[in-house]
């Protein structure tokens, strides 16, 4: 048994149809629990008041915005090295999910920033790198749509994904690289484990982060199936002489 067997579209579709009901159920349960727990079951913060409740949306969305790009990077590398079509289609499928996560992080960040910092926006390293990441997502999606030949589109978008990864890394580590700006450092550092968030806020946040991760997975697997079916339909029509 090798993981590469799932590069076969038929096997991928068979596996995805088996796991999707569980994945969607787990995602809905975790997102709903995390958000309801955070919204209704946590107190106000001493400094930030009730705006702390925005953390249950902002942090998971920002986390997935960056991780979605890294997933696209891995899928793009697999395409460039091994030429598996499913990996190229998985990268394509992840981009709209990633851009929505980036948009949620930017919008909730602006709404949170206004009462806390006194401004909707600042050219702060993390905010700026996130905006550039958003623009990379836009460019990536536009490039897929602009090129008719799917293999050429996969090649060029993979290269764009490699370049954009610099900004995905900057988005995550901007605060450490440039010790300036309004945005605080990471509240839940996975590597060091030295989180600055109290337990009462952390546990619902953790559930929400897991939920956003599962939702991302469910959406990407479903959308990859959609891309495979569209590709197969186009190939069938091309064979029967009607063109894609």
């Amino acid at each position, binding site marked *: 048994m090798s993981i590469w067997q799932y590069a076969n579209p038929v096997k991928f579709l068979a596996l995805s149809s088996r796991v999707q009901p569980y994945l969607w159920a787990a995602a809905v349960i975790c997102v709903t629990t995390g958000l309801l727990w955070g919204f209704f079951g946590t107190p106000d913060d001493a400094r930030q008041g*009730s*705006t702390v409740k925005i953390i249950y949306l902002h942090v998971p969305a920002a986390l997935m915005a960056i991780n979605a790009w890294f997933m696209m990077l891995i899928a793009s590398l697999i395409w460039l090295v091994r030429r598996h079509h499913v990996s190229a289609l998985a990268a394509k499928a992840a981009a709209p999910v990633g851009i929505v996560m980036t948009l*949620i992080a930017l919008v*909730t960040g602006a709404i949170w920033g206004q009462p806390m910092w006194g401004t909707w926006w600042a050219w702060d390293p993390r905010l700026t790198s996130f905006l550039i990441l958003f623009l990379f997502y836009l460019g990536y999606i536009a490039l897929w749509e602009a090129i008719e030949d799917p293999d050429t589109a996969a090649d060029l978008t993979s290269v764009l994904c490699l370049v954009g990864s610099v900004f995905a890394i900057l988005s995550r580590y901007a605060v450490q690289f440039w010790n300036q700006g309004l945005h605080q450092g990471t509240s839940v550092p996975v590597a060091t484990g030295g989180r600055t968030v109290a337990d009462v806020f952390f546990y619902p946040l953790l559930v929400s982060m897991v939920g956003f991760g599962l939702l991302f997975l469910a959406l990407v697997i479903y959308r990859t199936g959609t891309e495979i079916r569209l590709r*197969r339909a186009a190939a*069938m029509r091309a064979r029967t002489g009607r063109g894609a």
Partner: protein
Amino acid sequence: MPELGKYAIEVLSAYAASLGLLGVLIGITLRRGRAAQATLKAAEMEAKKNG
């Protein structure tokens, strides 16, 4: 409903915007998925008809 105090508009608008965006994403994803299934079915029927 929890007491959100003077930041009620900010908190509620953040939740409304985020859930709205997620709803649109899921809606578009499911609609496109169903359309793709119908397209593939039609292409398979066509291929069968043409031998």
